[in-house]
C-alpha cells in the first residue's frame, strides 16, 4: 500500500512544476522515436509470426467438415484485435521499452544526473518521465494497430502459402461479421497498457537506490510489475467493456 501511495504521489509530481511547452515537444518527439520507431522491428517480426502460427494452429484444431475455412481467418482476426496485439505486444513492449526506461532512469539516479536536474530547479520527474509516458501513450496504440495488420498479413501468408485456406476464404473471413467496437476496445486497452508500462517502469527506475546491481534489479522489477499490471488491467477491461 505504501508503494502504491508513493506511486500516486509520483504521478502527481509529473504534472506539477512543469517546464515550458516547447521543452516538452522536443523531448516527446525524441521519446516517440525511442519508444515507437525503435520498437517497429520487434513488434513487426513478433506480429507476423504470431499471425502465421495462430492461423496454422487454428486450422489444425478446426478439422470438422461442417466448419467453413473462412472461420480460421475470423478467429485469427478476433484474436489479433482483442488479445494478441494489445496484450501480447504489451508484454513485449514492457520487456523492451519498460526495462529501457527503468534502466535509463536508474542509471541517471545513481550517477546523480537526477540530482543535477533538481539542483538546477527543474522538476526532474516531470522533465524526465512525463515525455516518456506521453510518448508511450501516443506510440503504443499505433504499434497495436500496425501489429493487427501484420498479424493478419502473417496469417494470410501462412494460410495461403501452405494451402490451409484460399486467399478468397481468408479475406472473406477477416471481413465476416466484423464488430467495429473491437478496434475501439483494442485502442482503449493499448492506451491503458502503455500508461501502466511507462509509469510503472519510470517509478521503478526513478526511485532506484544503490549501484549498478540495483539498476538491473529495478529493470527486472519494472518488467515484472508492468506485466502483472497489464494482465490485471486486461481482465478488468474485458469484464468492464465486454462482460
Amino acid at each position, binding site marked *: 500500500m505504501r508503494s502504491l501511495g508513493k506511486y500516486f504521489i509520483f504521478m502527481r509530481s509529473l504534472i506539477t*512544476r512543469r*517546464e515550458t511547452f516547447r*521543452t516538452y515537444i522536443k523531448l516527446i518527439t525524441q521519446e516517440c522515436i525511442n519508444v515507437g520507431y525503435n520498437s517497429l522491428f520487434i513488434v513487426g517480426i513478433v506480429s507476423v509470426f504470431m499471425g502465421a502460427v495462430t492461423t496454422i494452429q487454428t486450422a489444425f484444431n478446426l478439422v470438422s467438415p461442417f466448419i467453413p475455412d473462412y472461420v480460421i481467418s475470423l478467429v485469427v482476426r478476433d484474436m489479433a484485435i482483442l488479445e494478441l496485439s494489445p496484450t501480447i505486444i504489451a508484454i513485449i513492449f514492457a520487456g523492451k521499452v519498460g526495462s529501457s526506461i527503468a534502466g535509463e532512469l536508474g*542509471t*541517471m539516479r545513481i*550517477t*546523480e*544526473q537526477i*540530482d*543535477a536536474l*533538481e*539542483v*538546477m*530547479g*527543474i522538476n526532474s520527474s516531470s522533465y524526465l518521465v512525463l515525455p516518456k509516458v506521453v510518448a508511450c501513450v501516443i506510440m503504443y496504440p499505433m504499434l497495436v494497430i500496425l501489429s493487427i495488420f501484420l498479424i493478419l498479413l502473417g496469417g494470410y501468408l501462412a494460410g495461403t502459402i501452405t494451402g490451409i485456406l484460399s486467399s478468397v476464404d481468408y479475406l472473406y473471413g477477416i471481413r465476416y461479421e466484423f464488430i467495429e467496437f473491437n478496434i475501439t476496445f483494442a485502442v482503449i486497452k493499448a492506451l491503458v497498457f502503455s500508461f501502466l508500462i511507462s509509469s510503472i517502469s519510470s517509478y521503478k527506475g526513478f526511485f532506484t537506490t544503490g549501484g549498478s546491481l540495483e539498476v538491473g534489479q529495478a529493470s527486472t522489477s519494472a518488467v515484472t510489475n508492468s506485466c502483472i499490471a497489464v494482465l490485471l488491467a486486461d481482465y478488468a477491461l474485458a469484464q468492464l467493456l465486454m462482460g
Partner: protein
Amino acid sequence: MIKIKNISKSFKGKQVLFDISGTLLKGKNNLIIGSSGTGKSVLLKNIVGLITPDQGDVKYNERSFIHGSEQDRKQIRREIGMLFQGGALFDSKNIEENVKFPLDILTDFSEEEKIDRVNFCLERVGLVNINKKMPSEISGGMKKRVGIARAIVNKPNYLFCDEPNSGLDPQTGIKIDNLIKEITSEYLITTVIVTHDMNSVIEMGDHIMFLLQGKKLWEGSNEEITKSDLKELNDFVFATQLMKQIYLR
C-alpha cells in the same frame, strides 16, 4: 552568504546530522570536512535542497530556502551551480549540450549567445575543441572540469562542490582545486566544498567546518586548523605521516 540554522536530519530513525549551525561566507572557499560517513554530503544536500531537513533552516542572503515560498526556492535554485562527485554529466548529451543545458532551461538567450557562453566557460576551465565529444569519451578530470563549466555557465552566486578531487590523481586534483579557488575569487561567489582531502583544506580553506559523527565540532580558517587543540580535529588533520612531518616538527 549562506546561514545554516540548527539543521538536523535522520534516516529511518537513525540521526545523521545533529543541530548544525554555521555561516558560509561570500567570496570565500567554505570547506565542510570530516571523515567518510560523518554526514558532510548529507549536510550539503540539505543546503542545496536535495534533502529536506527534519528541523532547521538554510538562508541564502536572508531568504529562507527551507521555509520560503516555491517562487523563492526556484529563484535561489537558479543562483546555484553544483559540481557533483562523479561529474553527473548527462550521458545522452555531448559536452556542449551538457554545459548549455542550464541556459536552455533557465534563460531566454539566443542560440548564438548560448554557444558563446558555453565556449567561454569551457575555455575558462581549460577545455577547448571537445564540444562535440560525449561524456564517455573524456577522462575523469575532464568530466570534473566540464561539471565546473556547467555549474558556472549561468553565472551562479553560489557554487557547491561535492568532493571535487575524489578519484583524481594528486596533480589533477590540485588543478581542479586551483580552478575552483580562482573562480570563487574571480566571480566573488560563495563556494562550498565538501572534502576530506587535507591538501585542499590547506590550499584553499578560507573557512572550514569540521564534522564528526553528524555534529559540528570546529569552525575556523586553514591557518587556525593546524593550531587547534581539539583532539578529534588533530586526529583527522594529522592522520597522514606527511602532515605530521610538515606541521608537528
